[in-house]
C-alpha cells in the first residue's frame, strides 16, 4: 500500500450523516458526546493517515477522508437552552460516519 492511497470519499458538502454509535476501547478520535448524533457535512477536509492507527505506531493507510460536520446544538444536548440556530462543527473521519 502506498503513502498516497486514499479511501474514496463517500460524502459531499450538504449530505446528512449520522455518527456511528460505537464505544470501542483504544485511541478514538471521535468525541463521546457526538456518537449517534446526526449532522450535515460542512466541507471535505482532505484525506489523512488514520490517527487511530498512527496512535499504535502503525501506518494508518489507506488515508481516511476527513470531514467537518456541522451539528445543531439542540440535536446534541437534550437540555440545550440556547438559540435554535446554534451549531457546533467537529472534524470526523469517514469511518465514523454513516449515511
Amino acid at each position, binding site marked *: 500500500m502506498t503513502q498516497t492511497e486514499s479511501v474514496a470519499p463517500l460524502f459531499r458538502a450538504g449530505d446528512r450523516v449520522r455518527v456511528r454509535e460505537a464505544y470501542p476501547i483504544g*485511541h*478514538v478520535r471521535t468525541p463521546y*458526546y457526538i456518537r449517534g448524533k446526526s449532522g450535515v457535512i460542512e466541507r471535505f477536509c482532505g484525506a489523512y493517515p488514520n490517527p*487511530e492507527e498512527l*496512535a499504535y*505506531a502503525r501506518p494508518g493507510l489507506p488515508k481516511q477522508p476527513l470531514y467537518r460536520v456541522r451539528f445543531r446544538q439542540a440535536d446534541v444536548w437534550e437540555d440545550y437552552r440556547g438559540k435554535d440556530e446554534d451549531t457546533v462543527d467537529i472534524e470526523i473521519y469517514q469511518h465514523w460516519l454513516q449515511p
Partner: protein
Amino acid sequence: MPALFSSFFAGALPMKTFRGVHDIGGLPADELVPSEHDYALWEKRVDALMVLLSRKNLMTVDELRRNIESLGADAYDKMGYYERWIYAITQTLIQRGVITIDELGSRIADVQARVDDAN
C-alpha cells in the same frame, strides 16, 4: 474483529460506558479560571523534545495522545500539561524500543546522584 472475540466477551464490557478519562465534553465541571503563566525551562525542553522526535519519525502526536489518555483518572487530573507530555513521550520511546526501561532507570539514578551531591 473475529466473531469468537465479540461473542466470548459479550456482556464483559458495559456497552455504552467506555469513555476515555480525557473525553470530557459535556460533563459537569468546575468553573474555568483563565490565567496567563510563563513556561518553566523544563516545560520548554519537553516541547522541544517532542518536536525533535516527530521530525526524526521516532513518534507521532497520536502516540503522545494515546499514552496521555491511558493515564489513570487520578494521575490525569493531578499531573500538569507537560508532566503528561513527558510521561507519554517516555512511554512511547519504551514501546518503540528507542530506549529501554533499564537505560532509563540507570540514567535517572545518575541524575539523582548528581542532584544529591549538589545539595
